[in-house]
């Protein structure tokens, strides 16, 4: 069933696939982010309680959602790498890690910035912010483990195991922190809780979410290309590619 995927385990094919996909991710991402933010920031109606400050959700919510999903994607890549012993899967995993970490940081930063007008303080131990912070720690752990090894193939496997340990923990952390939060804060209603949202607010949010997802994919694909070249630069296919690229440049 998954046979058609196997050729992409080879770095060369993976590189080609990345090159093909990159424009399809990048330009729609730019478009969606532009449309989503302009619509959300300038044209969507005000929130009747929070005024204009709610508009940060057009950045905060997509990044918060995608920080978790990027981690899951990373763990899926790691699992593929461990089970089928694909080198490229580990490369994809490590290409995602810093992207995910930055997205997590954006979610944290915007969350804190939102907290200032809402709670009057930059940091509250709100459940979602706390679990984002722990998620950031998990990302940093995977990245520093990868960086600590000199043999990058070994590094990929080690970081992959840690990513899997982390992903088992992500839901546990999420629910334990949420529960811990209700325990300690009692009646405080979470401002992030949005059971219903007006459609004219929802559409720009969904577009921004799509844009963020495509942007993460585009950056991941770019980073993966770099990673492949960095690891394989002494292989014949890279030399051939560089050679042919030079020739076309000369021709122009």
């Amino acid at each position, binding site marked *: 069933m998954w046979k058609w995927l196997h050729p992409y385990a080879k770095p060369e094919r993976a590189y080609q696939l990345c090159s093909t996909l990159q424009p399809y991710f990048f330009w729609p991402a730019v478009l969606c982010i532009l449309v989503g933010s302009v619509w959300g920031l300038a044209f969507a109606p005000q929130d009747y309680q929070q005024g204009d400050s709610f508009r940060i959700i057009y950045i905060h919510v997509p990044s918060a959602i995608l920080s978790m999903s990027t981690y899951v994607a990373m763990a899926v890549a790691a699992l593929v790498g461990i089970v089928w012993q694909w080198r490229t899967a580990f490369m994809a995993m490590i290409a995602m890690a810093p992207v995910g970490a930055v997205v997590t940081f954006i979610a944290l930063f915007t969350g804190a910035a939102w907290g200032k007008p809402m709670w009057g303080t930059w940091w509250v131990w709100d459940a979602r912010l706390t679990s984002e912070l722990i998620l950031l720690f998990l990302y940093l752990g995977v990245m520093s483990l990868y960086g600590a090894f000199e043999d990058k193939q*070994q590094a990929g496997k080690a970081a992959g*195991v840690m990513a899997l*340990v982390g992903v088992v923990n992500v839901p546990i952390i999420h629910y334990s922190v949420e529960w811990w939060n209700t325990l300690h804060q009692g009646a405080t209603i979470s401002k992030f809780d949005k059971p219903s949202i007006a459609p004219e607010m929802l559409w720009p949010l969904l577009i921004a979410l799509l844009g963020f997802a495509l942007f993460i994919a585009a950056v991941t694909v770019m980073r993966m290309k770099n990673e492949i070249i960095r690891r394989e630069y002494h292989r014949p296919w890279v030399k051939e590619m560089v050679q042919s690229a030079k020739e076309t440049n000369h021709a122009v």
Partner: protein
Amino acid sequence: MKALWSGIFKRDLALAFRQRSELAQPLMFLLMVVTLFPLGVGPGPATLQKIGPGVIWIAAILSSLLAMDRMFRDDFWDGSMEQYLLSGQSVWAISAVKVLVHWLVSFVPLLILSPLLALFLNLTVQMYTALMLTLLLGTPLLSLVGAIAVGLTVGLQRGGVLLALLLIPVFIPLLIFATSAVDAAALQLPYRAHLAIIGAMLLAAMAAAPMAIAYALKVSQN
């Protein structure tokens, strides 16, 4: 089975008793960290009782991180690990036995020391019972999950701080459930649910961790 019993279990126990002072150091660290808290936040019995469970659990996690890499470090660097892997025994079984010995020699003394800590931090008898139960269920989890990260970092020259960075976020849920079990006990509320969750995490770790440790050790051998 016999190979694991007399080749690994007895060997590691013998080694542990020969290196008693090394084993005692994390415990002394634990005791001293706990001593710092009354000095730092004030000795009021109510304050101590409030922060006590958290302090004991955090100190236990930190002190266990200090000694965690003992589990595989010597074996890796002197080449015993290679010989384990070539012994024809399954690696996960060897890892499981080594984790068991690690728990016996580093956490059982901690359990024995815990009444003293409870006394220092003014815990009530109910709180102490809950603390003891959470330690009993939670510390094997520390050993099992910790062993995965130790297996991954054992080949690195300076893996000590990295080990802590990898493990602290992973231990957070355990810390939350364990301390709130003690908090519930302080309010005379039932805390069986907390224990059940910790127990569930322990069982899951017992099922999955030996495989992950074995894989990590093999990766480190590359």
